[in-house]
Structures are given as C-alpha cells and as structure tokens.
C-alpha cells in the first residue's frame, strides 16, 4: 500500500578505457569522475560536484573514440567500452586555446591553478597584443547584442572594467569573470532559488547581471553568498577579503582554517573560519558536508562580525 523507499538505488559498474587502461566506473557517473578516481588530472573551471554541469568553459574536454568532437568530461556519462584519451595532442591544443582566450581577455590573477595549467599547455596570451583600455564603469552593463565596434587590430579585447562595490558584504569584480554560469546556477534552481542574477547580452558583450543591471540592494539578492562560494576566479569576493587583498595584507600563509558549526539556527551548517592574526576574515562551508552541501545564508556567511566586535570593546569582569 505505502511504498517504503530506500534513499538511493544501487548502481552497476561500467567498464571503460582511459588512456589505454581498463577502469571500472559506476553507471551514471561522468568521465571526469572516472578520471579522478584513477588519478588522472583534468582541469575544470565551470564544474562543481554540487551544481548541474553547464559545459561552457570547455577546459575539461577529452577525446572519445568515435566522437566527432571533443566531449566535456564533466558532463558526459561513462558508457561500456568507451575509449577515452585525456592528454592527446588534440585535447592539449584545445585546452591551450581555451586558456589563451580566457587569459587574454579576463584577469585570472586570483584563479587557483591557472599558472600551472598555462605552463603545462604552453599558453602565450601576450601574442594577442597589448590589452585594450578597460571599459568605463557600467559601460558593459548596457552593451546590446549585435552592436559591434570595428575590431582594434593593435589591442586584444578584454572584459576589464571597474569593480562593483554597492553593498557592505561582497564585491563583484567582473574583470575577473569567465562567464562560467556557476553563480547563476547557485542563485537559481541549483541552490538558492532567488534568481537575482542571470546572463545578459550575447557574444563578447555577455555578462552576469542583475535584472536591468540594478545595484544589488535593489535586486532580489538575499546575500547568501553562495555565488561567492562557487566562483572559480575570485570575481565574487567577500568584502573583508577584497579589502585585505587590495591593501596587501591578505596572507594565506598566516591563516588557519577551522571547521565549526554556525552559531545561528538549527540547521547546523558547517562553517570553515578563515582566521588571520586572531581575526575572522571569511566564512565558507565545505561542499562535501551533507547538511547543506556547502551552502549558507546571510547570517552564516557574514553574521560572525559580532565575535570580532567584542575585540574592539573588550569586556571585563
């Protein structure tokens, strides 16, 4: 009468070949899962375990025998008998081009691992010429699809523009944005369902935007900061980290990361506190924690300031 369902159904094993080696992978898992389980390093930018794959950055592509085009390993499911090559000349060339196009147009200075990848794939972004002047504030926010300027042969196009600081909690430095969609997914159906941001425009004019490009306090943003957590390039950054990086006092070698539990409601989200010189600078949450898979609300991500404030007005007995 009433179904008593187990939480998950068991999965079968699939046999496939990665770089000439037979491996097994769970049915329904991706090529990326299989590669990582077998110690194959695949670079990723737009991929995150807890988000639906959107296949936009193309950095994780691999060659699959019988497939006309390279396939994104983060989204393609394993199939029995599949023959995958993760480091062929074609794969390496494709990754090099993706990296060069991104690196020549976007500030990747706070993207982890990117320097190593550039070396590994022999990237030379300078060959596209010196960068064009940054766009004035808000210019890119109002670019219309199809309104093209004649190309400037002496300079490479970039998305450089001033940082947006319109609230006290986090900044949006879209000069660092690679349009990976992660923030849009986290704000939308994957996590928060606030839909405060989306991708506006087309082609090189595409950008992440609030509706009508209003400032965040006028938008639907609830300041959960789950977009910051998923941003792979540091384009979205909590204000204290941004300030400390700007004045040169952000020093990860002096920081500790301690996992504890949020002091607010009864959900029990894990907070990783990033502490430098006995000062909390940032709260994050591990993606592999089952309670909320790395998601927080405004109070968890930003509400710890009171601990700090006590240091300023020292209590005494």
């Amino acid at each position, binding site marked *: 009468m009433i179904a008593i369902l187990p*939480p998950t159904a068991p999965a079968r094993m699939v046999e496939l070949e990665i770089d000439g080696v037979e491996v097994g992978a769970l049915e329904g898992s991706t090529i990326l899962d299989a590669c990582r389980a077998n110690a194959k390093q695949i670079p990723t930018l737009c991929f995150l375990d807890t988000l639906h794959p959107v296949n936009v950055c193309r950095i994780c592509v691999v060659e699959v025998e019988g497939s006309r085009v390279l396939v994104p390993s983060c989204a393609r499911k394993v199939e029995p008998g599949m023959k995958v090559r993760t480091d062929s000349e074609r794969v390496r060339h494709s990754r090099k081009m993706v990296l060069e196009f991104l690196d020549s147009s976007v500030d990747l200075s706070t993207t982890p691992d990117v320097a190593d990848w550039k070396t590994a794939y022999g990237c030379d972004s300078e060959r596209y010429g010196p960068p064009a002047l940054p766009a004035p504030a808000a210019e890119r926010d109002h670019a219309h699809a199809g309104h093209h300027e004649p190309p400037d042969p002496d300079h490479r196009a970039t998305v450089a523009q001033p940082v947006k600081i319109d609230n006290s909690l986090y900044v949006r430095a879209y000069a660092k944005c690679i349009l990976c969609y992660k923030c849009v997914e986290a704000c939308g159906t994957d996590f928060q369902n606030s839909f405060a941001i989306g991708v506006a425009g087309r082609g090189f004019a595409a950008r992440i935007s609030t509706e009508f490009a209003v400032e965040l306090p006028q938008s639907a943003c*609830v300041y959960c900061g789950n977009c910051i957590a998923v941003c792979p390039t540091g384009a979205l950054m909590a204000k204290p980290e941004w300030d400390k990086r700007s004045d040169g006092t952000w020093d990860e070698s002096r920081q500790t990361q301690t996992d504890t*539990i949020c002091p607010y409601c009864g959900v*029990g989200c894990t907070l990783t506190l990033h502490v430098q010189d006995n000062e909390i600078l940032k709260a994050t949450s591990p993606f592999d924690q089952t309670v909320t898979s790395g998601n927080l609300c405004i*109070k968890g991500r*930003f509400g710890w300031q009171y601990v700090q404030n006590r240091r300023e007005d020292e209590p*005494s*007995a």
Partner: protein
Amino acid sequence: MHNGTKIISVDPRRTSTAQWAHRHLPIRVGTDIALANAIAREIIDAGLVNETFIARATAGYEAYRGSLDRYTLAFAEQETGLDAGLIREVAHLYARADRAMICWTLGITEHHNAVDNVLSLINLSLLTGHVGRYGSGLNPLRGQNNVQGGGDMGAIPNRFVGFQDIRDPEVCDKFARAWGVPQKNEYGMTMTQMFEAIEHGDLRSLFVIGENPVQSEADQTKTEQILSSLDHLVVFDIFMTKTAELADVVLPSAAGWCESEGTVTNSERRVQRIRKALEPPGEARDEIAVLCDLARRLGADWGDISAEQVWDEVREMAPAMFGGMSYARLEQEKGLRWPCPDESHPGTMYLHERLWDNPRTGPPVPFNIVEHELPIEQADAEYPFVLTTGRRLADYNTGVQSGGFASPLRRSESVDMHPDDVRRLGFADGDRVRISSRRGSVVAPVRIDPTLQRGLVFMTFHFQDDVSVNLLTIDATDPKAGTAEFKACAVKLEPVEVVVDHELPAHAGIAGD
C-alpha cells in the same frame, strides 16, 4: 520542490515559503487545533485513515474519533477563516501522499496551548501512518544551533542527559553514584516557573548563562521588575546584554561556537563538533573552565576537564543515545544522528521505526484529545488588532549577534499592516504610530504589507534597544511547557504627534530615525 514535492504552507502571513507553496492556508492566528482536528475528521469521514497502522501501533483511536464531532469543515472555516474546500483538499493530499512530513516552528509553540497544538499534529501523523518511515514524520524545526542539544544534555528541569527521567529512582541512583552526590528525584522549574518563584520570594539568586531574558521574554516591564528583585544575579555571557546590566556579577564568556571546543546538535539530531578557531578577547574565558572554577569555589574540585572528557561522560551516562559517538567518529563521519548506541552503529536517520514492527514492539502510541481554544487575548473594541511577532531573514532574536554585521537587507523595526487597515486608520506608509497593548506601548513606523490579513499586525523583536516590542506581548504561558504566547496579543494603534516623544515610557524609542 523541483523534484515534485508539494509544500502546503499554513501561515497567517504570506511569507516567501507561502509564495513558493503548492497551497497557502492563511490561517487566523491561534486556530491551529481547529484546522488540525477538522483535517482529522475529514480524513476519517473520507475513509482515508491507515486502519492497519492505527490498530497495531496506536491507542485511544475511538475516543479521539468521538472527540472530533464538532470539527466539521464548516466549523473550521468559521474559526480559521480558511475556505472549507481548501481544508478538504489539504486533508486529502496529506492522507493520500506516499510520504508526508509535518514541519513546524514557533507559530505552533509560542501559544498558551502550545503542547496541545503539537499533539493535534501528532494525531494527524498517527491517523495516516506518516511517522517512523523514510520521508515521513514530524519535525520541529529548531531555531538555534543547539536547542536540540540543550534538551539532549539535560538542560531541562525534568530530565537528566539523554532524556532520563529525574523521578525514576533507578536513574536518580545511577547519577548519584556516578557523581558521588545525592540527587533529588523531583523536577526542577521551567523558566516561567522560576520567574513566578522569584515573584513569590521563593527563588532569590539566579545564574543566567547565554540568555537575554530582559529582551527576549514577554512583558518586558514585568521581567525587569522580577530580575531586579533578586538578592543576587550572575550573568555569564559574551556580551554586556540588557540582562547583564542588571547583574551583580558578569562573567565574560568565550563565544562557544568559535572560541572553544565542544558539540552542538542540530534539528535532525546530528551531533557535530564545534572547534576553537581563535582566542577569546580580554578576560573572556572558556565556559567549561569557568564552571570548573565555580565548582572549585563551591567546594567540588573537578580538576581541569576538557570538552571531550565531558562528552565521554555524556556517552557513559546516556549510552543508548550517545554511546557510539566518540570524538574520533564525529570528526571522521562529520557528525552522527542519535540514537547511536555503540561504535559500530551508523546513527539513526529517522525515529519511531518500531511503530511498523509486526507484531508491535513496545507500548502503543496514544491519540490525544485536544480542543480548539482561542488565544488568551482577542481583538476587541478597545484593542482592535491582533499583534503577532516573528523574525526576518538577516536578523536573529534580540539582535545581540546579528546586530554586529552591516546587512544590506536590514531595515529598522516597523509595524507591518494590511493596506486596508492603514487606509482605514488614516495612516500613510512610514507614519510613526503608537502601538499599545494592555501592558505597554511603543512607537514605530507603519509599513504597508499586503501579505498580511486585515486586523493582523506584525512586528519583529530584533531591535529591542530601539523598539521594545516585548513591552506589548502577553506573558500568558502554556501550563505544560511554559512557553509564552508571543504569537498573539491585542493592540491598538494611534497616530503619534511629534511633541509627545518625551512622554513615552522609558524603554519605548523611535525606530527608523
């Protein structure tokens, strides 16, 4: 919800949850039992009860069914203000669902008949068998990171750690032997009872740890009088709260969640580790160290004990619940849900599975007969509005913690009203008005809120330093649980003329300036 879950939101206000819900039931404040009992009667009348489950796992069904006679859909419609067809639809949705869960929070429990409200919901789960199975059940959503843990640890007047009954002589003996001190096998007092005992002169000293009752309790004027009448008040807190200001001694505390070690237990009974990430400021000290010092001064030398040693004693004294939860496992497995009796036990995802054993194991679960009762104070000619208090996303309780960060979502206190009521009283959005109950009076700006019902006004209690909303609330409490009726009191609203500011009661401030 993206996977097809239907959410039914029962809330006097059209909250963001209500806006997402499959159906929103904008119930009249304090008529929850009328709704629950009518749903029960409809489930029975429509033949949708789970007869097998009722026969095997429950007791008292016939008497319960008999008690539902007057709870027709028409009666419920009249009392709750909800459409009878909507109540019927929800009854059928709940009863016919493969899996269904009832979650609630303070809208159910901050009433003078809080326990009855909860029992009325338990009855629904027993009628339909929506309990003790994966994906079904009853779920009180906890409002603080360790409400569950506080009760689990015995920080309640009638239980030792692990919900072991203080009146059970064997239990009492066990703790007396372990601690080497005789234990009184009688219940202590709830906070409400403590306040009564202070009023009657029976309780003369109070040690308050991490609580700000001056601003969190109903009827603030009375709370302040009561606490001021003590011979001795000690407050152990991370802040100089309004309560601490009344204290004879204030002990500054480390912030438990980030300046000391320990565990907290969340809403799903998951025990998780809290860890020290930074040093406490100034003279603030770890809570366990302070309590050990206090014990030493009182003549009991416990030595210097760690949080893990305390936890291991918890495991030893309540092995059925916590025996298997070593610090090593809590670390490794990122928390465990009780009961977890031994090291090989994986923890428990949901409770009451035994109710599905055939034949039944253990005692049957009783239906409880509960009757609809309106809140103590009703709107009347003199106080024509009902005030209900609640919370906002970016703020937390009396604001001592959440007030520390600059939230772009924060706006100061307001009295939220339906546009028709605003118009009827001749107010405009933003007008400062005086809100008065039989106990006190505050001033706040009007905010037009079409998500409210006519006749209902809403305020938070996040900004008590500016607008002391708990001057208005009623201290009517549930005789069984001691919870106060924060969700309903009668108020009137009047325009404020600018010149009367200096005549306001001492604690009433002006918000929004």
